[in-house]
C-alpha cells in the first residue's frame, strides 16, 4: 500500500469539497474492494475520503411503494432489515448471500454498485427490480446506471446517496456462486411488478444485463417452464478460470428458472 491522506467528512458537501480539492482522491465505504486494490498497489490515490461519517448516507426505510436504502448500508443491515424482508424478501436474500460474514459486516450497497464488479450481486438486484440510484445531484435509473465492466454512469466526484427500490408483486434471486468468494458465477433476479417482468443476469457477462426474451415469456406465463427453452447465446459472455462462456450460458437458463420458482414460493 502507498501512503495517502485520510479524511472523514461529516456531510455530503464537505465530502465533495475534499474530493475536488485533492490531486487524485477516492471515496472509501466498506473498503472491501478498495483496500485490496490499495494493498496490491494497483491504485495510488493521494487522498482517501471516508464516507462512514456522513449520517445522510445511512438508514433503510419504507416510503410508500418504495424501499429506500442509504448508500452506506452494510450488506448485513439490508439482509436483516424488517422493511426489506417484508417488502422485497428477494433483496434480503441477495444481501445475505454476499461473500462471508466479515464482508457483509463491512461492505455497502453504495460501494458495491459504484464498483460494478461483473460478478457482484447488487447490480442484478437493482436492474432486476427496476431501482433508481439517487446521487448528490440527480437520479439515475438502474437501466442507465450500469455501463460496462467496472464502469457506471457516475461522474467523477459524484456520490451515491441511496437506492430506491419499487416494491414488486413478487421477486426471486438465485445465484450459483464461486466457492472461494461467493461472487456470482451466474446470478439472476426475476421480478414482476407495476413495470412488468424484469430478468437481470449478473456474473455471466461483462456487466449486468436483462434478458428480454425471458421477460416476454414470463409476462405471458410466470412459470419456470415458460423459459425452459430459452437459451442465451454464449458469444460475449465471460470466460475465466471459473467457467467458460458456454457453461455460463447454460447456467443462465437453469438459474433463471430457479429464480422464478423462488419468486413463486415467496409470494
Amino acid at each position, binding site marked *: 500500500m502507498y501512503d495517502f491522506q485520510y479524511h472523514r467528512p461529516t456531510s455530503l458537501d464537505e465530502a465533495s469539497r475534499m474530493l475536488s480539492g485533492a490531486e487524485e482522491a477516492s471515496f472509501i465505504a466498506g473498503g472491501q474492494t478498495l483496500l485490496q486494490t490499495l494493498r496490491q498497489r494497483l491504485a495510488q490515490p493521494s487522498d482517501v475520503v471516508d464516507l462512514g461519517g456522513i449520517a445522510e448516507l445511512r438508514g433503510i426505510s419504507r416510503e410508500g411503494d418504495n424501499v429506500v436504502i442509504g448508500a452506506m448500508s452494510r450488506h448485513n443491515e439490508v439482509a436483516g432489515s424488517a422493511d426489506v424482508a417484508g417488502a422485497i424478501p428477494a433483496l434480503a436474500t441477495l444481501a445475505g448471500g454476499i461473500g462471508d460474514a466479515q464482508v457483509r459486516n463491512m461492505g455497502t450497497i453504495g460501494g458495491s454498485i459504484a464498483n460494478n464488479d461483473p460478478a457482484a450481486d447488487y447490480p442484478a438486484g437493482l436492474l432486476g427490480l427496476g431501482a433508481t440510484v439517487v446521487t448528490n445531484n440527480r437520479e439515475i435509473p438502474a437501466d442507465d446506471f450500469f455501463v460496462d465492466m467496472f464502469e457506471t454512469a457516475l461522474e467523477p466526484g459524484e456520490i451515491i446517496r441511496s437506492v430506491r427500490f419499487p416494491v414488486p408483486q413478487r421477486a426471486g434471486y438465485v445465484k450459483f456462486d*464461486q*466457492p*472461494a468468494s461467493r461472487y456470482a458465477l451466474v446470478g439472476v433476479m426475476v421480478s414482476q411488478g407495476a413495470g412488468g417482468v424484469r430478468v437481470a443476469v449478473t456474473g455471466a457477462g461483462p456487466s449486468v444485463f436483462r434478458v428480454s426474451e425471458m421477460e416476454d415469456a414470463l409476462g405471458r406465463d410466470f412459470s419456470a417452464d415458460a423459459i425452459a427453452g430459452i437459451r442465451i447465446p454464449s458469444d460475449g459472455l465471460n470466460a475465466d478460470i*471459473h*467457467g*467458460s462462456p458456454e*457453461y455460463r450460458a447454460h447456467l443462465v437458463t*437453469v438459474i433463471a428458472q430457479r429464480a422464478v420458482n423462488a419468486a413463486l414460493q415467496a409470494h
Partner: protein
Amino acid sequence: MSEKPPLSVLDRPNSYIGRSVPRPNARRLLAGRGQYPTDMVLPRMVHVAFARSPFAHARIRSIDTEAARAAPGVVAVATGADIARLCKPWVGTLDHFAGMKSPPQYPLAMEKATWQGEPVVAVVAESRAEAEDALELLDIDYEELTPVTDPETALDPATPVIHEDLGDNLCFSSRVDAGDVDAAFADADLVVEEEFHFPRHTGVTLEPRVITADYDPSEERLTAYHGSQTPYQMQDVYARHLGLAEENVRVLCKDLGGAFGIKLHVHGEEMTTCALSMMLGRPVKWVADRLESFVSDIHARDHRVRARMAVTAEGRIVGFDVDDLTGVGPYSVFPRTSAVEGNQVIKLVGAPYAIEHYRAALKVVLQNKNVMSQYRAVGHPIAFAVTESLVDKAAAELDMDPVAIRRANYVPDDAYPYKTASGMAYEQLSLQQSLDRLVEFIDYEGLRREQAQLREKGVYRGIGLGTFVEITAPGAAFYGVGGARISAQDGCSMKLEPSGRVQLAISINELGQGTETIVAQVAATELGVSMEDIRVTTGDTGSTPYGGAAWASRAAAIGSEATVRAARALRENILEVAGAVLQEAPADLDIRDGQIVGRESGEERLSVAEVGRVGYFRPDTLPPDFHPQLSVVRHYAPQGLPFAFTNGIHASYVEVDVETGGVTLLKHWVVEDCGRVLNPKLVEEQARGGVAQGIGMALFEECLYSEEGQLTNASLADYLVPLSSELPDIHVTHVETPTQYSEIGAKGAGEAGTAASPGAIMNAVNDALRPLGARVSAMPMTPERILTALGRI
C-alpha cells in the same frame, strides 16, 4: 522381591492411553498466547522482501540495484551471486533413486530464472513496506526463453531443455514389474481402463512460511526462529550450507500454524534470510505473503495416470498396469526430492488387493513451474483414487456390488505377514474387518435403498467407497539410506523437578496435531503421575534431543516409544532413590498418582515430591556414593519392517445437481485402523482435517498454469479451498490392530484422511452419474467438468 513382571504401559493403573483427554495447550492457544514464529520481534530486526521472476523461463541479462539501495530505509540489496558467496547450493537427489538428476540450486536465481515467482533479488529494509517500495526501483533485464509447461511433451526433442547440463528434462524414471502382466491381461475376461488427471495443488497453511534469522558474529552462532516441521534437518542444512558449526546453529519453532508437508523442504527464501543475517550481523525476518506462498511454497500432485486392471468373469482382480507421468518444478526439491510422490504411486496402486501381476512405470519430468514435493499423504490419494475407481468400474461392468468386489479381493485378514507384488511388506492389516465395520457404520443397505428411491424422483445421489493402505512411521528406508541427513529416530529427555513434577523435552514437534498431548499422556501413564505434572517442550534444537520431528505420520508412533522408555527409566531412577530412603528394594515399589506405593499392597509410602527434595537437597541422607539420577534421555528407532502400514476405508455420500453440475457432500465416513489409538479425539481430528484436504483435491483445488507458465489463480479469491460451509459431517470410527514391533503399538494417523477421501468422492460422483451414462476421471470435479461429462455443454 515380587515374582510378577512389572506392568506394561498399557496395563498401568489410571492409564491415559486410549482416552480422549483434551489438549493441554488448547487454553494457551485460545488465549492468544501461542508462540508462532510469525510473531517474533527482535531488537535491531530488519525485514527482507524478494523480487521474483515475472517469467517462467528467462535469462537474467543484468540487474541494476543502484536506485533500490538509495531508497529510504534500505539496509542491503543482494543478488543471487551475493548470496551464493555465503550459501552453498544444494542438489535434490537421493542415492537410492538410481539415475535421478537435478542441477545445483542456489537460494536466489543465478544466470537463469526457471519459474514464475522464483526469488531473484533480496532487498532488506527497516520495514517490510520500505523493502517492498525499494523492490519497485530494481531494474532487472530479462531475456525471455521458451518455457516448458506441458509434461506430455517435456521429453520431446523439440522441447527446450531447462538445464542444458542435464541433457534432457527427465528427472527420474522407475519401473515395477512383477508376475506376468501381459499374460494376465491377455487371459482376463474383463479389462477396465481409464486415464486420470490429478492437477497441481498446494498446502495453503494458515500461517505462511516464516523465518527470523539472528546471526551473532561474536560467537558465529545462528539462531533461526523458523516455521519448520523439521528443526533438526534445518539445523543440519544451515550448518552445512552456510559453513557454520552444527552446535552453533539453533532452530526454534514452538507453535506452528499448519504445515502439511509444506514446511519441511529447503526453500531459497529461508536460506537467503539466514545468509543476509550473517552478512549484516543483525536479525532479518521474512514472512511470506499469500501471493508469495502460492508461487513459492512447494506444490504437490500433478499426475497423469493411465491405468488398467484385469479381472475374471467372477470378479477376481488379477493384475494392474499403470503409467504415471508427473511434472515437477525446474529443480527436484532438497533434501527429500520431487520423486517420492511418483515413487509411492507406482508402489501403492492396487495395494489393498491380493494380486500377483503388477506393472507400473513412472516418469518425473522437469517443468518451468513452481517446485514440487511432498505434501500430506504423498502419492496415496492418487494411487487410491486410481485403484478404487477401477474397482468400481469393474464392479459396474460385472454387475457386482462395490462392497462385494472389495471383500472378494482384499488381502484377507488372516494372510499376514504379506508381501505385495510391488514389494511392500505388511505386518498385519484389517481390510476385511474395516469393510465390515463400514457397512454397518453407514447402514450401507439403507443408504442404497434411499439412493434408489430418490433416483425415481430425479435426484442423483451416489455412494463411493475408498480403501486405503498407508505408509506411516518410516525407518531410515525413506531418506537415510539415500544419503539424506534426516533422522529416522527420535529422543525424549525427562527431568524430575524438586517439586515432583516433570520437565520433558522431545524431538517430535507440535504442528497443531496434538504432539504435546500424546507425549504427556504416555509419560504420565508410564511414570505414574498426573498429566498436569508433565511440562512438554518441543521445537528447539538447542534444548531437546536430536530427532526426525513430524512428517510421514511418524510423530506419535515413534515419539510415544521414546517417551515410554524415558518415563520408565525415570521411574526406575526415582524408585532407586525411594528405595534408598525407605530401605526397601526398588522393585517392590511403584509410582501411582504421584505417590511412591508398595507394588503389591498399593499402600502410599512417600510422595514423588519427597524424592525430589531428598534427591536434590539432601543427598547427604542417602547411602555413600549414591548419586540420584533424576534426569534421563532415551531414544527410539523404528523396528521391524521399513514402514508401519495402516489401513481403513472411507465412504462418501453425495448429491449431484445434474443441471448445474454442482456436487453437495452429504456425509463422509472414515473407518481408520492406525494401530493403538493413543487419543481417539486427536485421531478423529486428524481424520477430519485430512478429509477436508481430500475434499479440496476432489472438488476444488487446482493451481492453474497458463501455457506461458504463469500461475493464473495465485490468490484465495481464485484458488478454491473448501470452507467449513462445504464440509459435510465426517464420522470416524476405529479398528485397532497394534503393531507388534513396538511396545505401545501405535502406527501413524496423520495423513489417512487425505489418502482415501478423493477416491471415495470420485466414486460417489460417478455412482450418482452412472444412470446417465457419464463418468469423470479428472480432479477437481468442477461443475463444468461434470456438465461436460453429462454432455450438457
